[in-house]
């Protein structure tokens, strides 16, 4: 009996030890499950490159993951293997970049990709093999022909807002639409190359919008084509609501062209990151619909936006699902984003950079696409991960070299007999400012000397301004003043890097009328204009396509005017029983009202500037209210002439 009991204990002990051994080996349920994501395939004619996401869908870290072999239906990858992918945390993705060179690989055929390798778990090395059939040579979104659509936006100009934004400090601009929708654009410091006057106009409606639930809210942002170096954030709060999975961001270019869906941020509020202007908003639809599915935007940057938008739409709905709180991880989302961004690099960024080497007209498009690609990588948290980290470094290096070459060519053109100094100095200035933001301005050590040699081109300012103060109440006065500065020379200050000028401001006319309470009457009040001066600064707008400035009329300048001009009103009033009585009543009326309209405390210098294209007389109508309740109406035409 005793023996039987001991035997039973021994068996029990062995059983327990076996169980302990088993559980130790499986690290208490910790698992590694390696899967492949959707690959990006590029190349042709027997030479293909594969970018394959590898996901660890298990619950433990796959340590020291290495790819030891890769084959496409028996054709081995070229290049050095093993490929070390380091550790892959549970739920995280790493990427294998593989090249295959063989005449046996034919475009349009399917091949079985097999990746073999090793990883460690609990100090033990294990093998893995993942498979995926690959169709070689299929066109991706960046290789397909464009299929754009145009919509018809109707703007609500009565709710338009204009604000100067400092390049150094950034700023915020807010507009409210007729339906109560609030639009807030927040621009971070150093997102702009130069100060900018930004206009935000709510969209009242959009004709032909291809979202089945219709338009919800949106704004147009001007100047058209403005670009940010860091993403600005647009937040839209509107009374219209829809479930998260039915909210679609959108964007379009000038006059509603190239309408496409645009990524919304993964937040409950409607927010989007913006790198360029023009139209942005959101609409409603239970699904994308066949029209938008077929849309292929004109530019690679917009194609990237529409593809990211499709992926984030699903992920946003998943993360905001009340039944998925807190949201579970979804590594496949990041896999898909990464694959898309790798496609963008291979089929858009790199080809455009290559094209720009031989033809500088591609530089602008290459820079825009590269910037959008890089910023998306940063926003998705992939910028520090290989192969993107190396690709970003290579892209930046290529862009810097290309822009320096562009700068040198611009300087050479400027010194040539038929050079256009204004155009070339704007380009040189823009390149230098871009390098400054990248911390690479030391690569242009002679910038200021060269800019001075280019002379920057003289501008002649004509400032023709009328100020009316009307609708005053009884006891007050209305007036109409006209001031003029004609062909005032402005020179480029290579220290301040802006145009400056000063001179006389004439006062051709100053008229007005008192509203005396009856039976009192005016008995010869006088409106006397005085002498004046004007000080002007002009900042070249580098935020809009400075790489593609072909002629002076494409140079946009923010002109800040400081008028110092005197005037005097002598009031003369008489009554039925009293003689005419006169006294000086008011002075410097034009200057005071100009200050009310322009010195609004915004912008880097606190003065509302005029945005003017060179050689283009530009009218401005600015309204406000005077100190005594009258309506102020400024009508000013600013002309910057560039004498050749």
């Amino acid at each position: 009996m005793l023996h039987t009991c001991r035997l039973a204990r021994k068996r029990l002990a062995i059983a327990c030890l076996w169980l302990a051994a088993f559980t130790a080996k499986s690290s208490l349920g910790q698992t590694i499950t390696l899967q492949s994501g959707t690959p990006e395939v590029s190349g042709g004619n027997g030479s293909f490159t594969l970018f394959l996401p590898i996901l660890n869908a298990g619950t433990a870290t796959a340590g020291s993951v290495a790819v030891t072999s890769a084959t496409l239906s028996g054709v081995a990858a070229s290049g050095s293997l093993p490929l070390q992918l380091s550790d892959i945390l549970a739920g995280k993705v790493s990427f294998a970049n593989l090249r295959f060179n063989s005449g046996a690989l034919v475009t349009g055929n399917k091949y079985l990709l097999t990746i073999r390798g090793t990883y460690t778990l609990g100090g033990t090395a294990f093998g893995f093999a993942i498979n995926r059939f690959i169709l070689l040579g299929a066109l991706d979104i960046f290789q397909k022909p464009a299929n754009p659509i145009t919509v018809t936006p109707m703007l609500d100009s009565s709710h338009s807002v204009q604000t100067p934004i400092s390049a150094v400090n950034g700023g915020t601009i807010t507009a409210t639409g007729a339906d109560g929708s609030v639009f807030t654009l927040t621009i971070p410091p150093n997102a702009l190359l130069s100060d900018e006057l930004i206009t935000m106009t709510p969209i009242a409606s959009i004709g032909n919008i291809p979202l089945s639930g219709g338009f919800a809210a949106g704004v147009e942002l001007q100047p058209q084509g403005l670009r940010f170096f860091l993403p600005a954030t647009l937040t839209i709060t509107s009374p219209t609501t829809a479930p998260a999975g039915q909210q679609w961001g959108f964007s379009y270019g000038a006059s509603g062209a190239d309408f496409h869906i645009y990524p919304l941020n993964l937040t409950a509020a409607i927010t989007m990151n913006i790198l360029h202007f023009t139209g942005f908003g959101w609409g409603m639809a239970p699904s994308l619909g066949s029209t938008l599915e077929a849309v292929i935007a004109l530019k690679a940057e917009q194609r990237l936006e529409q593809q990211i938008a499709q992926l984030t739409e699903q992920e946003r709905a998943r993360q905001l699902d009340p039944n998925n709180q807190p949201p579970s991880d979804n590594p496949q989302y990041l896999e898909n984003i990464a694959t898309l961004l790798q496609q963008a690099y291979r089929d858009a960024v790199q080809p455009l950079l290559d094209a720009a080497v031989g033809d500088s007209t591609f530089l602008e498009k290459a820079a825009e696409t590269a910037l959008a690609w890089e910023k998306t990588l940063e926003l998705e948290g992939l910028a520090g991960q290989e192969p993107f980290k190396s690709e970003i470094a290579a892209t930046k290096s290529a862009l810097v070299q290309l822009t320096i070459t562009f700068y040198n060519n611009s300087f050479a053109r400027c010194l040539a007999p038929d050079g256009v100094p204004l155009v070339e100095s704007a380009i040189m200035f823009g390149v230098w400012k871009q390098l400054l933001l990248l911390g690479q301005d030391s690569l242009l050590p002679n910038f200021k000397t060269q800019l001075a040699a280019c002379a920057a081109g003289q501008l002649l300012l004509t400032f023709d301004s009328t100020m009316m103060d009307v609708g005053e109440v009884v006891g007050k006065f209305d007036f109409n003043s006209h001031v003029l500065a004609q062909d005032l020379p402005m020179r480029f200050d290579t220290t301040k890097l802006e145009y400056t000028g000063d001179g006389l401001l004439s006062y051709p006319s100053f008229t007005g009328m008192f509203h005396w309470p009856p039976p009192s009457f005016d008995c010869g009040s006088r409106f006397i204009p005085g002498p004046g001066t004007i000080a002007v600064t002009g900042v070249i707008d580098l935020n809009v396509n400075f790489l593609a400035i072909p002629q002076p009329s494409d140079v946009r300048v923010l002109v800040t005017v400081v008028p110092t001009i005197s005037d005097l009103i002598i009031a003369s009033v008489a009554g039925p029983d009293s003689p005419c009585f006169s006294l000086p009543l008011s002075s410097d009326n034009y200057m005071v009202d100009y200050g009310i309209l322009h010195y609004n405390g915004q912008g880097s210098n606190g003065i509302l500037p005029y945005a003017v294209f060179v050689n283009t007389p530009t009218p401005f109508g600015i309204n406000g209210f005077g100190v005594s309740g009258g309506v102020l109406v400024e009508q000013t035409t600013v002309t910057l002439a560039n004498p050749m």
Partner: protein
Amino acid sequence: MRAHARWSKFCYSLGGVLGFLFLTATSARADGIAFQLVTSTLTAASGGTVTFDGTVTNNTGGDLNATDFFFNFFAFDPTSLNPIQDLGVVTDFLIPNGSTTVDVSLFDVVVGSVSPGSTFTLEVQLEDVNLDASATQTVTIAVPGTQSVPEPPTELFLLTGFLPLALWKLRRA
């Protein structure tokens, strides 16, 4: 005897909990795709190859082809095993939504030069082009023969495992 009872109770409880965890860990995925093996254990000679046959079920909501499915293998000894996908390689065929194929060759495992009497396992998962994934299954390849000497790590482990038993016995003595 009471100590023994407590210990055995603990062991059985531990086994139950861990067993539950293990089972739930492998069957938690409610997937639109699945594969069923004719047998999950095959015998192969050293240097030989075994073929695992079975069916594939598509409940993804859309029709798929055999080449839309991919096998992933992991947790195996890379010096002894080399798994190779068969599904879709020789012939491609439609697997309509809501259907299960007849038995076909799913994958092979090439066994390296190994000791007689060895047993190897590997984890297998089926993935599709839409990134759906099946539950993971474990397959076993047994190499006939007698294994004369336990592998050092196992021997060491068993020795360590018996140590508490010996101490327990000594204490009782």
